[in-house]
């Protein structure tokens, strides 16, 4: 039969009403919990580091201070975007980021408070922002991961510049789109100038270096000898070895001290300017940088401790001399945009 405009069904008011009621009921319970954030005895943390890594640190903080922590975990970049969207209505007091990039992004938006000197002074001045809006609390080193069956340790390169040589043709993995790599490349660029950086990257592309999206994927690929070398964070190989033991056929190699290939990527802690709990927030940062938690970070999570006077775990490669933050970056966003442009133009992402 034909369509019957006159007899056609009317919208489902009842269903809609029922759905609305359900939503409101859900909302009441949910807002009740959300209100707990206003409790002066609790802090809200946005964490770009995974719960498996920093969760124990938070638990220890609550046990020590009685201050409960409400934590939203997520990718650092996503959380930074969320914070930008929330603006001064954000419930967050503290934001932990994998690298200084997202912190710089928020700093540019004027959303970060200045951290107390006492906290800032726990680390070397290369490990904090010059204006005191972020402080590093753990480091991951940029290293060269290699396949232990295919590569003789004696042949390992001293410098990242060696990787453009013929003996590495088609054998090196580059995580061109990875944010840690981009952090490193930005610093590399600023220290050596754009011309040298572009020349190096183009030479890598010409040398048949392969693009992999993630550090973890590179370590896996190297481990199974899909490729023999990779520019990665040191951290991944430790986790792989922890999981797979001797079956993991990859190892880390640090470039020679002072080489531009080595770099420390700093995980940063920031306090939101909109937070009403500046004191408690600074206490949390101080806790992150306490000897005990720093020892946990290096001993259990295999990261480099940044608090002065805490030694890195013995199994870690030598501490890279350079770190993000060592070079003063005026306009973080502009520099990272430039980095992305160069990386895209090089064609490495299509390799």
């Amino acid at each position, binding site marked *: 039969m034909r369509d019957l405009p006159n007899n056609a069904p009317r919208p489902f008011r009842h269903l809609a009403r029922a759905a609305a009621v359900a939503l409101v009921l859900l909302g009441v319970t949910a807002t009740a919990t959300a209100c707990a954030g206003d409790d002066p005895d609790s802090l809200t943390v946005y964490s770009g580091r995974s719960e498996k890594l920093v969760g124990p640190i938070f638990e220890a903080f609550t046990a020590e201070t009685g201050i409960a922590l409400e934590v939203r*975990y997520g990718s650092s970049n*996503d959380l930074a*975007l969320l914070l930008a*969207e929330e603006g001064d209505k954000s419930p967050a007091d503290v934001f932990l980021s994998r690298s200084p990039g997202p912190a710089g992004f928020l700093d540019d938006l004027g959303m970060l408070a200045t951290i107390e000197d006492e906290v800032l002074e726990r680390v070397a001045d290369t490990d904090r922002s010059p204006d005191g809006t972020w402080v590093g609390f753990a480091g991951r080193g940029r290293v060269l991961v290699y396949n232990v069956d295919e590569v003789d340790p004696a042949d390992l390169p001293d410098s990242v510049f060696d990787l453009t040589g013929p003996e590495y043709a088609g054998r090196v993995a580059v995580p061109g*789109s990875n944010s840690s790599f981009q952090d490193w490349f930005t610093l590399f660029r600023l220290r050596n100038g754009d011309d040298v950086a572009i020349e190096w990257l183009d030479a890598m592309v010409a040398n048949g270096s392969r693009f992999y999206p993630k550090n973890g994927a590179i370590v896996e690929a190297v481990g199974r000898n899909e490729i023999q070398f990779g520019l990665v964070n040191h951290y991944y190989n430790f986790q792989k070895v922890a999981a797979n033991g001797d079956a993991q056929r990859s190892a880390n190699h640090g470039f020679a001290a002072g080489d531009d290939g080595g770099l420390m990527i700093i995980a940063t802690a920031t306090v939101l300017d909109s937070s009403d709990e500046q004191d408690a927030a600074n206490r949390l940062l101080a806790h992150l940088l306490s000897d005990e938690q720093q020892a946990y970070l290096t001993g259990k999570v295999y990261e480099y401790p940044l608090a002065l006077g805490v030694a890195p775990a013995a199994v870690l490669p030598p501490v890279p001399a350079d770190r993000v933050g060592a070079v003063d970056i005026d306009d973080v966003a502009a520099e990272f945009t430039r980095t992305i442009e160069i990386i895209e133009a090089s064609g490495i*992402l299509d390799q």
Partner: protein
Amino acid sequence: MAAAFALPGGYVTWRVIGGTESPLALLASHRTLAPLWRTVQLAVLVSASTAVLGTALAWITTRTDLAGRRFWRIVVPLPLVYPSFVGAAAFISGLSPGGIVHDLAGDLGFDLAIRLHGLTGAWLVLTLFTYPYVYLPVAARLASLPTAFEENARLLGDRPARVFTRVVLPQVGSSIAAGSLLVFLYTVSDFGAVHLMRFETLTQTIFRTRLFDRDRSFALALLLLLLALLVVAAERTIARAGARRGALLAGDGTVGDRRALTVGLGRWSVPATGLVAGVVGLALVAPAVSLADWGLFGWIRSRRGGASLRLDWGDVLGPTWNTVWIAAVTAVVAVAVVLPVAYLTTRHRNRLGGVVNAVVVAGFAIPGLVVALSLVFWTLHASPFDALVGSMPVLVFAYVVHFGAQAVRTAQVAVDTIPRRMEDAARLLGAGRVRRLATVELPLMLPGLAAGGGLVMLSTMKELPATLLASPIGFRTLATQVWDTYEALFLPEMAILALVLLGISAVMTWLLVVRRSDHLR
């Protein structure tokens, strides 16, 4: 209602207009056009291959005497539940040298020297993980179709293969189109698989530039949305033309009037079983074996006194329960929300219906991150609602806006399947609008709605960015825990959580989709 679905689009447009760079200049640059072309290429390929695969699997599992059909009907839709990054990662590492699947095959004498990446890799992985978008609606449609036409055709001497192309295909055409559309939109919005396969699509560029080049990122998101709208409109045009052609066949046969006709597979039973088992093996079992390999390794290691598993019952049970109820609630709310849209668009075929349809369906093409950000943006700027930021309703709302599209087309098909005479009969027996809906239309639409709700449910269970950003703080689902452990590279723990996710998906698929669609048989 549709306005709610337009929120992400409105947000993206607002951001693009408010940006400092000219959107046109951004969109026209080669940096934009190359990923756009790759996106279209991939989406078209994946849509086509899933259409074939999903339809074949649906027909084999509903219309033939395939052994163990009930079992297959539960497991065939399951690959949908792998979060893209987990599925692709497990898939790649399983098939690569050192991976368990590769090594097992090696022991059996096969050399799987597969180097999956780029277009081919992304195509294969996405096809394997998204064919359920076609399979579920087509299987639901087949389950509710009268078999009379097929029987007639058989009696007229057609062989099953001919019956399939001449009779079955025209009847399920709209369901195939609906499913392929979802696959297209999923592919366009996918991040995980293309990322791991090193195939730079629009979404990849959006994610890469999201923090340091927000203008471009939003301009690309808008481009993605426009592409989606275009495809949705095209699909609707095709579907309507098809509906006109298939009207006579599809007719309004009595729903599930008899036991479905089964085609004896005969000598084809081995290839058919091979196809179903092969697909399930690749898409479901291979990643699961890799996961089990990782998980088991970690468990054995901890048993032998090595590093202990950093996972306790609390890490599993709480997130499992959260996953189950939020997915079920979202599925029900999504179906309730899209049902009026389905009625509007099928019973009133006018321009408004077309716009509403496009807006709702295109929401699926927007990356979850953008959906979550847009809802935070709008709730914060809609004064009485700003208290709701980070609450369950906003989370459910975000899921519904993002995934409602998956229920829309199956709901539309379901509405279309209700014989008009059933409604007429009920009206003449004195039943008003509400009673007709509750006692006649909903029961008749149940298989279709359940299939749509099932898709929403499976998607919700694995959704990540929206869950991480829009959920109440501290709300953990299995997907967030899988992601967290994956980020920390705690692979054994990740594997165990992913297997739990897989297990409860199987249970819920059985409860909500398979059992429901059998209900009318």
